[in-house]
């Protein structure tokens, strides 16, 4: 049994770090048992990015043939929130502003042609119909850049996406996750030097692309960070292998090497709905 005990704070860095440790515990549990129990009973608070990470892991284990079961949170609010997010396996029906966690898959030998487009169709539809009109183009930009990165570089077999519009609080959470070769891994594969996994993330944000000789490639991550941070005055987080990077609005950006790696890349964003229509173009040049 793996007990989920995450920090009861709204700090994504701490929650992400906590989730990576839980995922490691789940991996260890797999080496001992065919039955995995995730105990959420004492969970007091969970952010959507944490739910995305744990949900992705549970789906991976289920698809590998493990029998999984969940002990639900005693806290009724946490239980209800996880239910809305489609936890643990994702794939619930979208309810206007809630786009439940959505997982998509690609076989290793399969060309990814059309997979992303078809998987994102429902997500884009929900956003177009229910999200603030002045923000739609910006959200499309962020999602498109991130999922195209997954498609282009990650060699994923499992991807996950989650978009939530908290109407009352007036903010939006976006999370995109893949189980691919990671940003540092892609650089290693293409013989691009970096000091450590955090340095690899800074290089990716600067636009150092694995596609040599194509000057307009590699802009997606950096422009997305700029759009969220400056255009939307929001927060932007990347976790890839052992590197965790954050750029929170109004605070100096930073990074940390985590002890335990994530086998993949997670990008999370949180921002408030702006008062006026967002013009994305000054931020993505």
């Amino acid at each position, binding site marked *: 049994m793996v007990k989920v005990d995450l920090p009861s704070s709204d700090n994504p860095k701490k929650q992400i770090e906590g989730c990576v440790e839980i995922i490691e515990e789940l991996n260890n549990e797999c080496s001992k048992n065919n039955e995995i129990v995730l105990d959420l009973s004492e969970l007091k608070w969970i952010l959507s990015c944490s739910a995305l990470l744990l949900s992705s892991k549970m789906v991976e284990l289920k698809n590998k043939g493990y029998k999984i079961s969940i002990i639900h949170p005693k806290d009724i609010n946490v239980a209800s929130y996880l239910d809305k997010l489609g936890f643990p396996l994702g794939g619930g029906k979208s309810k206007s502003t809630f786009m439940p966690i959505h997982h998509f898959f690609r076989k290793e030998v399969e060309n990814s042609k059309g997979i992303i487009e078809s998987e994102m169709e429902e997500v*884009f539809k929900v956003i177009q119909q229910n999200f603030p009109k002045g923000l739609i183009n910006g959200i499309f*930009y962020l999602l*498109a*850049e991130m*999922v195209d990165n997954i498609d282009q570089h990650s060699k994923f077999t499992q991807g996950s996406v989650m978009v939530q519009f908290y109407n009352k609080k007036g903010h939006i959470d976006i999370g995109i996750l893949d189980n691919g070769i990671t940003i540092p891994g892609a650089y290693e594969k293409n013989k691009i030097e970096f000091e450590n996994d955090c340095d690899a993330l800074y290089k990716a944000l600067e636009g150092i692309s694995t596609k040599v000789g194509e000057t*307009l490639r590699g802009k997606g991550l950096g422009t997305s960070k700029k759009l969220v941070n400056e255009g939307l005055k929001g927060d932007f987080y990347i976790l890839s292998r052992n590197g965790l990077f954050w750029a929170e609005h109004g605070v100096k950006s930073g990074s940390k090497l985590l002890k335990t790696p994530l086998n993949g890349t997670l990008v999370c964003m949180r921002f408030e709905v702006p008062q006026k229509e967002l013009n994305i*173009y000054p931020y*993505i040049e």
Partner: protein
Amino acid sequence: MRKTVYLSNNFGNQIITRNSIRLFLDLLSNASNKELILDFKDISFISRSCADEYIKWKLSLSGKKNIIEINMSNEVRMMFKLVSLQYKKNSSLTI
């Protein structure tokens, strides 16, 4: 010799990934038609990556095929404009 292609038939309302637009454009490159009319009706969004891929494709066909775009939404037009400007900044290529 003229062919009209409706992008929404292939992509739905959004054009998102380089892989998918590249495969689509490769097919058009091989078409025998000298003039291609690309109808962007119902395309509400094109990603920067796809706009980049499209512009590279159009440049590669310069002098070989006449490419005409119609029914572009403002959002799609703006994305093309932005990527074209980036090309101009980065090279002397004419878009």
